[in-house]
């Protein structure tokens, strides 16, 4: 009886506040958002009509939505691959006990502390002025025009900046994983005659599998929902060629004033990201190794 009372008290103390926050800031807005998808509300008007699943129908019939979904896939895939490779490479180098490794770690991590918006503006300046000036002075035609005014190069610019920003963060997670690889295993491998590549391939990578899972999961969700860099670096331009899905949803809701449609697009994005993440996590969990 006393035990039961105590557990109720603990429940009230620990779970209720957290539940309260979760319900008010996650659950209620989510349900309200779902409700809006069935209306033609423009976000401001005093009244609205129920239109059933019309918004969802228009999401899939809208070519521009499918297009920006494709662009998001390209951007997301490239950013996930490059930022993880780069982050892992830096982590491997910075766990080799080289001189000044803490300074390097700090340096590579810094881009993550700068917010996406500011970062976007800084790189905007680099692409639009610094690189073009360099191009004009050196006569290299590739750099003479801004990356941001060419549809293909603007997408590359987005991937470069995202990779640059995220790799430092991933590096930290990878370093944590690499430090925890038991020394005796590596020593044993060395005695067996494993070179640096074999040590990475057969010892380190399998041992940091859980770090890889976390990093890939993080990058997939973050790149799929990338917004701030998209806004400040390219603003969807030139001529909407880099309008990725989150930015597209924002424009639908707040520029086109189709709040219901924008919300329906957001729900579709939510489902896509959820499916990808679940697949990714279950697949990579299967191969994790415990030391």
């Amino acid at each position, binding site marked *: 009886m006393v035990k039961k009372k105590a557990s109720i008290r603990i429940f009230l103390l*620990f779970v209720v506040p957290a539940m309260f926050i979760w319900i008010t800031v996650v659950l209620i807005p989510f349900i309200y958002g779902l409700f809006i998808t069935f209306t033609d509300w423009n976000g*401001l008007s005093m009244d609205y009509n129920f239109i059933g699943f019309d918004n969802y129908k228009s999401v899939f019939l809208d070519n521009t939505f499918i297009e920006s979904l494709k662009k998001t896939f390209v951007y997301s895939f490239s950013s996930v691959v490059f930022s993880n490779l780069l982050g892992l490479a830096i982590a491997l180098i910075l766990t080799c006990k080289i001189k000044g490794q803490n300074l390097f770690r700090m340096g590579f991590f810094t881009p993550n502390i700068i917010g996406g918006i500011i970062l976007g503006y800084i790189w905007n300046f680099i692409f639009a002025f610094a690189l073009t000036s360099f191009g004009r002075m050196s006569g290299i035609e590739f750099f003479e025009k801004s990356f941001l005014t060419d549809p293909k190069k603007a997408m590359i610019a987005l991937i470069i900046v995202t990779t640059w920003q995220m790799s430092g963060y991933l590096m930290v997670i990878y370093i944590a994983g690499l430090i925890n690889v038991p020394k005796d295993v590596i020593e044993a491998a060395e005695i067996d005659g494993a070179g640096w590549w074999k040590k990475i391939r057969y010892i380190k990578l399998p041992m940091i599998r859980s770090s890889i899972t976390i990093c890939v999961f993080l990058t997939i969700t973050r790149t799929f929902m990338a917004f701030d860099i998209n806004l400040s670096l390219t603003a969807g*331009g030139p*001529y909407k060629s880099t309008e990725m899905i989150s930015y597209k949803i924002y424009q639908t809701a*707040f*520029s086109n004033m189709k709040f219901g449609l924008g919300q329906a697009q957001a729900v579709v994005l939510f489902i896509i990201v959820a499916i990808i993440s679940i697949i990714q996590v279950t697949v990579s969990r299967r191969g994790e190794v415990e030391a």
Partner: protein
Amino acid sequence: MKKRFLSLILVLAMVVSLVSACSKEGADKKVESSDKGTTSDASKEETNKDDSSSEKVEISFYSTQTGMDDKFEDIIAKFEEENSNIKVEYIAAGDNQLQKWMSLYASNEGPTVSLMDPINIWENQDRMLVLDPNENPWMDQVYESAYASYIFDGDIYAIPISTQGYGLLYNQRVLDEAVGGTFDPDTIKTRDDLINLFDKIEASGTPATMITGVNWSIGMHYLALTYAGYRDSREIEKTVVEESRAGTFDLANDEVFNSLMDTFDLLAKYNYNKSDPLIGNIDLDAEALATGKVGTWFMGDWSWVQLKDIADRDTEFGILPIPVSNDPSDERNLKIPASQPKGYCIDTSQNTVEQQEAGKKFIEFICFNPYAQEIISDTMGATLPYENVTVKSDSPLADATAWYSEQGRTLDISNFILLPSDFWYENGASMEAYLSGAIDRETLATQVSNYWKNN
């Protein structure tokens, strides 16, 4: 026991922070009221007199005019000084003026007075107060024609803040040197005259003109002229929009569209930014015109805000109309598009009658008080569309707009309110693609027509 105590403290701390976060709103209000307390303490004798009669009315003012935040705060301070029973909260719009507005309304904090674009007011007129000149005699000070963008079904919904015109801004010194003498804008009556002028400017060693490749400039200010300004009457413009929506309007073969685009091609051919037309940097472009690196610029009198602070700039600037034909008797070639792009409206849906009345007082003050007029005219470099304005703007571009207005040489573009609020964003992208050479005119016409079908 110790642990238990510690966890209890932690939980308490969390609950307290949660509660305080949730009731931030309440806390703010408390601070305000305690502020009030101190002011009334300071001037107890004054407040004691009319304590019973006057309750302080709190209103809010939402502004979408960029770069004016400090100035509006100054005007508000002066207003509050003169109207001690009204408190005005200033809310500045961020990058996306609609988003902030929508979230304010969503949280039931719709601003009492909002300074918005005509289309935003039109789309939300069911929330707005109809301003009746019979009840509000001060409204007569506004030029009647300046209400054009804010009259819906015969009712006035907002008071315009300024009249602004645009066209080809020019640097007088550069053009004087090009023509060898004093350049007179009235010598440009046709498109060929303009080509002639451009050739002369280029011959003098300066690039002739400049387009800033941004969606709001070429998508709204240029392309939208297809729907408002260059046709014979507002009724015809309305029909064009209706037919466009219905998908029956043949844009590709439309005379106005093609005339405008012919001139656009001309501007693009002589464009100072031709090598990278979408670079779109308004500050660099302003600098280029101000220092005479280029002769003309497709932009509006509002850019005086950027021009005036540039060191070593030239002093004389003017505005040229955009000629759309080779007929010297075509009046459209002599006029510049001008309108009242933003107006003050009052919300009725989330504000009490007292707040609405206070809002009216505030609008009257901000429009007609000499102190406010001087600030607005100075910072915006704009022409005020009111009678008996004593302040004089130092902007030669505002003077040019005023001169065209006085001569009756402005194109009425108030039908811009017929264009949906995303017109500039969606079609601006098509215009950017056209300017960069990615699509031809036919594709442009198809894209714009498709835009209408989806709206």
